[in-house]
């Protein structure tokens, strides 16, 4: 078995949960499916808009469709054998356990800071042993060296953690996707930790 076959066979039995299918979630999902991850559950209650196309993994002909369904279609075009569970719903305290309880790793990919905070606190309270990989701070362009990972036990925070005015500093593809790739790379690190050499 080659090294890449060893990695993909190890990832093929793993499951990641992704909370949100926007700029972070859609791009994380694509990188994980490309890497050979076998199982993904992704939850979001939004539809694809024209404005999403500047950074999210959707296409112009998918505008108006549910993000999770459009994303599932795109992911299956990368790997038709991937098991992609698309859940068109808002993540709440009532359904988070059934959505993410069986995942090996969970990616936080919400848009709003209050949702990020709620979800982090809920995960720490209910699944303290499960790795949670968050994104925080990625607006604007330039200064790529400010993007970093903060590690705190099973909590990992990717981004610059810098507050900006969203009217003046928009979200653009490079920094959003860089943070998504940091999240995906950390997911691989955690999922491959106990991989035999």
């Amino acid at each position: 078995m080659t090294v890449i076959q060893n990695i993909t066979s190890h990832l093929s039995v793993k499951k990641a949960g992704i909370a949100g299918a926007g700029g972070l979630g859609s791009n994380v999902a694509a990188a994980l499916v490309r890497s050979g991850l076998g199982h993904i559950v992704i939850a979001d209650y939004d539809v694809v808009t024209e404005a999403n196309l500047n950074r999210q993994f959707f296409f112009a002909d998918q505008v108006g469709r549910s993000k999770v369904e459009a994303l599932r279609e795109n992911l299956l075009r990368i790997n038709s054998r991937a098991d992609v569970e698309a859940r068109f719903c808002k993540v709440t305290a009532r359904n988070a356990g059934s959505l993410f309880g069986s995942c090996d790793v969970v990616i936080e990919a919400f848009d709003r800071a209050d949702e990020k905070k709620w979800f982090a606190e809920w995960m720490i309270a209910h699944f303290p042993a499960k790795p949670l990989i968050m994104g925080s701070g990625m607006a604007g362009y330039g200064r790529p060296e400010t993007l970093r990972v903060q590690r705190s036990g099973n909590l990992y925070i990717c981004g610059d953690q810098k507050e900006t005015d969203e009217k003046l500093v928009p979200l653009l593809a490079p920094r959003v996707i860089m943070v998504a790739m940091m999240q995906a790379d950390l997911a691989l690190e955690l999922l491959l930790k106990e991989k035999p050499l």
Partner: protein
Amino acid sequence: MTITLNNRKESFSPQEMSITRIMEEKSFIFKMLIVKLNGTLIPRESWTRTVVRDGDRLDIIHLVSGG
């Protein structure tokens, strides 16, 4: 006291301090923060009365909108 703040050693002259005082001293002024002391989540309402001592590990995470 010397503590580990966000994975870096930081020294303060008092022997113990509340989380709120450490935040004031280190200029953590943002709204959406997650605070963990020795791995335990500390809710906002407890920051003033939670005491940090020498050798403790304090993590302060700033959550920003956008994703």
